[in-house]
């Protein structure tokens, strides 16, 4: 057990060190911009916890990030470099919206599961396409997932502008989904979506599936070495496609939960590049589901904290992009080093 504890410490020591170093460098930077660096940094890190309202917004940010990161973890563990999180997210959001808008008369017990299922299915379908193309025709998944992102974004833009637009509102937003299927807020935190609880549970489920089932072991074997997986009788192609179905499904669920729990409608600009940030969260967590929950919370804190910091001081919120970029740099440098050791 001592051995396990030590390896756990080593595993989290590196990311914590990188975060601490990033924060220290960031502080120097902030100090060079503003007269009140302490205030700026306090806002960046702690304004999220100033009020229940801020805390709710923080959890709402973390929810889609966690779910997308979990999806990315499934696909990466199966050896698929899936960068299609954004498209899968949008597909899930639009599918849930369409169901929630057009079948508003159905009773909630039917409509809610239907909307969620539609979101999952739409995302899963978007994951399935690059998965099958990779397995059957050896088409590079980076290209297909990136292209699908563009296609889906343009397609949802068409739908929201031409088909389900709320003409009484500004901007490209759809009509509201039936109020009966809005998700309840999280107990004790009004304004925070209960979708966050779903994300937490799914992080645990992902860990169990990947590391405590034979199916997960086979999926990882396919990702680590396809020729090895084949030789030990793993149906590797099927596992890869399944992983992409799950990956897309999780990102689709992120979209559906956003619509049902936070936006209550489809907004064309609802995502500040959740797909990309979710991918970063997964990588920083070394494609580990529990770690991804932590990195998603960290990113949510930074994204929202930057806004508070910009309001109260004259530090631009884009500082946070710089900091997160720096963090990625430090973390990957660290990854290379540990890679060499192996």
């Amino acid at each position, binding site marked *: 057990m001592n051995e396990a504890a030590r390896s756990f410490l080593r595993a989290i020591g590196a990311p914590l060190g990188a975060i601490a170093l990033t924060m220290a460098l960031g502080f120097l930077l902030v100090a060079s911009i503003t007269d009140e660096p302490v205030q700026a940094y306090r806002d960046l890190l702690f304004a999220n916890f100033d009020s229940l309202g801020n805390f709710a917004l923080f959890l709402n940010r973390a929810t889609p990030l966690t779910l997308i990161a979990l999806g990315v973890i499934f696909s990466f563990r199966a050896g698929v470099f899936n960068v299609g999180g954004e498209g899968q997210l949008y597909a899930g959001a639009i599918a849930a919206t369409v169901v929630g808008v057009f079948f508003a008369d159905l009773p909630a017990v039917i409509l809610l599961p239907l909307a969620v299922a539609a979101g999952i299915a739409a995302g899963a379908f978007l994951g399935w396409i690059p998965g099958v193309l990779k397995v059957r025709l050896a088409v590079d998944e980076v290209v297909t997932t990136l292209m699908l992102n563009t296609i889906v974004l343009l397609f949802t833009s068409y739908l929201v502008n031409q088909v389900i637009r709320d003409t009484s509102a500004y901007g490209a937003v759809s009509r509201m989904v039936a109020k009966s299927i809005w998700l309840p807020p999280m107990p004790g935190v009004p304004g925070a979506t209960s979708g966050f609880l779903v994300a937490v549970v799914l992080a645990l489920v992902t860990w169990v599936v990947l590391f405590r089932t034979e199916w997960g072991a086979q999926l990882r074997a396919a990702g680590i070495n396809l020729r090895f997986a084949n030789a030990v009788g*793993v149906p590797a192609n099927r596992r890869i496609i399944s992983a992409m179905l799950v990956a897309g499904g999780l990102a689709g669920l992120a979209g559906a939960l956003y619509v049902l729990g936070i936006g209550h409608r489809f907004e064309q600009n609802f995502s500040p590049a959740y797909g990309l940030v979710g991918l970063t969260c997964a990588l920083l967590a070394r494609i580990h589901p529990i770690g991804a929950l932590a990195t998603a919370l960290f990113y949510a804190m930074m994204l929202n904290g930057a806004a508070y910091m910009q309001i109260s001081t004259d530090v631009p919120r884009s500082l946070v992009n710089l900091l997160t970029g720096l963090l990625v740099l430090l973390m990957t440098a660290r990854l290379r080093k540990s890679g060499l050791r192996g």
Partner: protein
Amino acid sequence: MTDNDTILSLRGIAKTFGEKVALKRVDLDVRRGEVHVICGENGAGKSTLMNILAGIHQPSAGEIVLNGEPVRIPDPIAASAHGIGMVHQHFTLVPSMTVAENLFLGRQPRRLGLFSDRAAMVDRARELSLRYNFGLDPNAPVGQLSVGQRQRVEILKALAFDAKLLILDEPTAVLTPPEVDELLQVIDGLRARGRTILFITHKLREVKSVSDRVTVIRHGESISTHRTADVSEADIARDMVGRDVFLVGRKGDGAARSFGAPVLKLDRVSMTNSHGRLLLDAISFDVRAGEVMGIAGVDGNGQTELSEAIAGLMAIQGGAIELCGRDVTRASVAERQEAGLGFIPEDRLDRGLGVTMSVAENVAATNYSRAGILRHGFVDRGRLDAFAASKIKEFDVRGAQASTPVGWLSGGNMQKVVIARELERDPALLVVCQPTRGLDIGASEFVHERILAAADRGHAVLLISSELSEIFALSDRIGVMYSGRLMRVLDRAVADEATVGTLMNGGEAVAA
């Protein structure tokens, strides 16, 4: 001590890479004009020592005395200035260039000190090749040469620098048996011309046949130096491993062994690649229960394809494969495993293991339900680790715990993990490919014992190896493959190395 006879002495050479001690203390005297073999298991530090002589590494301690003078060898250029030439374990030739261009890469003869003089270069290359009787065409692109010919280019490259002391780092590892014989002759010829040769190997047969003296290195220390004539193979093996070694095999027993019914039947199995080239040409044979069927052949004559066809990893275009009475011609890998297939692939890192996964996950890969690792459908970590621990113990996997990434182990211990996994299913047929490639004596001994034990328990074993001594030591029958064809199947009793060697090169055997 450094009299005229001694060209090179090393005194207390040590080398550490960070925390890793590659060489602890090596003393070595090399006499002018001798062939001196350095012998030791994988990882003993042979290459590191030679790289120090070649100026690639700097020693952490110790002294190098060359021709009576203490020297420093800061880089490879200094090494060649001292007359030391090295042929590396891994070739360093440019495949798209010709033999002559490779020989003089970076130091072409110049005309007017500026333009490279191609004609002079080709002439010199031809002359060199003739002088040493290497039979190389100076204008042939290196990429088109056989492995043995490429190696001769490497040797010639060192000689073109006028190396007095030639170092060959495991030159025979990549060669076929006839090529090995040719190389040994080349070395004889060089000795006759007064060159001094340091020859690295861990194969005992070569030590005996080529060398004047032999120095054994174990765990970074020089253990002993003997005149080769004074020691037996077993003596050298004992020094290498540090204990008595039993070279296992069927050879001695001579007792007629009885076999069961055929477990594997191949009927005119054929395979073509996407360009229509025939990789397997109507191969038919049986392997019976309790029997070791050896397949000999030079690498690349269809053995890999044969093993992958039987394992279900490559599709065949003609013929049928039957395993334990079931037609598995079109069956998946998993179905064949179900029918009784165990498969030890030729490349552990490529097919045999997921190197970044733990020892436990590798050994459990095909055995989750069989070994009772699952509880209510979930992997029970305690049972997984216990299963791995029992296999680590049973198969003597050194330096491993259940959670160790399997890629951290040495080659021999990785191979033990593969074998442990495949034997767990108690397969009726065990297909074993190049099982001791890259393993040291101790590990090879262990692997051979396991293979024979499997046959004794009534498993059918198909052993595919390009190592003739292995085939002869273990097999009850020997098939020889050449160019995708199964040339002949011989009973062990009537097979001899000459016949099999001829067949391996495509020649018709004269003897039966």
